[in-house]
């Protein structure tokens, strides 16, 4: 395993630009294309395919006059391409139309939810990454100890659990049946933000952390064991370097890249995982917003939230790849 050397890295900077730069550009281009197709699929599926969205919203008892009015409101009387152009233009300029459920502008409904969900995902991702990396490193150092064995078995079991089972178990343990120390629901009064009432965030974050930690733990443990057993760590030990230096300077940097990738993929997962968790705790984020919108067939809200989640997915994926690449010394060298 080679460490970076300035000459080799320099060789990558040719006329065609730095290899990482080229990679970022090509991946971003691919991501934008994917997103455009995603937006067409979402739009076609929700607005055009099922015959008529207005009919779907109003149901079987709609009067022709109301149907016609809603068709005009949704712009369903125009061509598909014109409808799509108007819709995507509206999304990008912050005028995504009005909610069919209560008539409010969709962006105004979704924006505060987006902030709340972002807080939830960021805090859960951060806590999950720290706990997973720490537990994984300790388990690798104490390989085959009781601590390692118990954690490995528990993590295998927990990876299988659905989020709503984890969430309900936490509610049973900490909010209702066994102890009553935390709120069972995380309802925020309108106009307040998630961070103003931290006790409401505890159980939703704990649920998401419990779901993501096992993956990060398992990858960190495996990567750390591999690093610790490698020849360069052996070499560092034989040179007589202090144990902490071997661990932090030689082993850890090589265990990080695969772990970074798994952390990124788990952040991705959180984008979908918040749907169920927010619903369980009545937390006003976009996940709960999506479930409500699906129940009400509130098509403009569904469209916006699904596209936001897909955009997060696509760009987070690219970011994960690039960060993992930057964290891998030998891959920075141009081939």
């Amino acid at each position, binding site marked *: 395993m080679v460490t970076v050397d300035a000459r080799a890295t320099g060789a990558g900077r040719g006329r065609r630009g730095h290899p990482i730069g080229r990679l970022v550009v090509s991946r971003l281009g*691919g991501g934008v294309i*994917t*997103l455009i*197709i*995603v937006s067409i*699929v*979402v739009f076609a*599926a*929700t607005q055009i*395919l*099922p015959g008529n969205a207005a009919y*779907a919203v109003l149901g079987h008892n709609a009067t022709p006059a109301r149907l016609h009015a809603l068709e005009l409101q949704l712009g369903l009387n125009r061509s598909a391409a014109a409808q799509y152009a108007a819709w995507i233009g509206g999304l990008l300029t912050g005028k995504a139309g009005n909610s069919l459920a209560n008539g409010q502008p969709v962006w105004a409904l979704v924006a505060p939810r987006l902030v709340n969900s972002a807080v939830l995902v960021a805090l859960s991702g951060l806590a999950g990454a720290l706990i997973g990396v720490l537990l994984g490193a300790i388990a690798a150092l104490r390989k085959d100890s009781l601590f390692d064995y118990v954690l490995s078995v528990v993590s*295998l*079991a927990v*990876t*299988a*659990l*659905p989020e*709503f*089972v984890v969430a*309900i*178990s936490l*509610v*049973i343990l900490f909010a209702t*049946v066994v102890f009553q120390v935390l709120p*069972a629901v995380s309802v925020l009064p309108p106009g307040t933000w998630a961070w103003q009432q931290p006790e409401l965030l505890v159980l939703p974050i704990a649920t998401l952390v419990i*779901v993501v930690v096992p*993956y990060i733990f*398992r*990858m960190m*443990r*495996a*990567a750390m*064991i*591999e690093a610790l057993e490698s020849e360069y760590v052996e070499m560092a030990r034989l040179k007589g370097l202090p144990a902490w230096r071997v661990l932090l300077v030689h082993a850890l940097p090589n265990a990080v890249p*695969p772990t970074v990738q*798994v952390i990124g*993929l*788990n952040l*991705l*997962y959180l*984008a*979908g*995982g918040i*749907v*169920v968790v927010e*619903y369980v705790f009545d937390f006003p984020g976009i996940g709960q917003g*999506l*479930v409500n*919108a*699906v*129940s009400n*067939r509130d*098509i403009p809200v*569904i469209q916006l939230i*699904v596209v936001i*989640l*897909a955009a997060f*997915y*696509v760009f987070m994926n690219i970011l994960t790849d690039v960060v993992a690449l930057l964290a891998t010394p030998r891959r920075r060298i141009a081939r």
Partner: protein
Amino acid sequence: MAVPGTPIDAPPPGIARLRRHEWLSVLSRAVRTRRGTVGLSLMALVVAIAVVGPFIAPNSPTEFVTAPFSGPAPGTPLGGDALGRDVLSRVLAGGWLILLMAAAATLFGVGAGAAAGISAAYLRGWADALIMRSVDVVLAFPSLVFALLLVSIIGPKLWLIVLAVGFSHAPQVARVLRSSTLDISERDFVKAVELQGVKPRLIMAREILPSLITPLTVEAGLRLTYSIIIVAGLSFLGFGQPPPAPNWGLMINENRIGLQLNPWGVVVPAALIAVLTIGTNTFSDAVARVALGVGRQAEEITPLEGHVLVAPR
């Protein structure tokens, strides 16, 4: 593709092919590992309850037999649910459909993913580009969000949920199978059949697919756990079987407001779902380890990277 006239070592028929029934030996070896035994036992326990349960339920699952959220009593050992129906009877009757839907979604997802992955890798060119671009598009939706999108269009139909869940698995399966196929299609036994002028469709179905049954078995095991999680999750959100049907996911949601009065209506279905998913996950983990030759020492880093432990769902 082999260029006509290129010398090729003609393999003796039947020898160069991969072992066709490898997957059966993988399964039987997996069952004999400790993980495999534990996982299969847990699965069997829940499957037995779900399958036999409807026939031995003491009460009708939809009949009102006691007070709402009443505690355990003779005749209703697990108490009453939100409307005063027998929790035990609803638990016994409420599992089979989740199992059936999850199994069907897994089969569909693995089948569709295998077809897409093998075609992409073997046909190359525009077919590969088209299939893998579609895979990227489907992958841009979290599985549950994809299912919710379809439900919002067509309504909470059970067949739709099966298709949506299966379809959201297909991309991952396609990616794994594509890379396996790229490797297999370079082997001599495939080259030999190509030289005989067999059609690509038949080569994929008769030569490549049978050689990939082992990775397919591994994928199916992993996908089964995720299918159960999403199918039960959709029921929990209220987009599965409509009330008053007994359904473990729906029961948890219906009865959670009465947790303080009668927790059994939530605890028992949640525990059964947990035991089931832990069982399928542990068993499929055992299968994956045996199939990929992962010993106890070398932990799951290289061979399983991107395959087993990457990320949830």
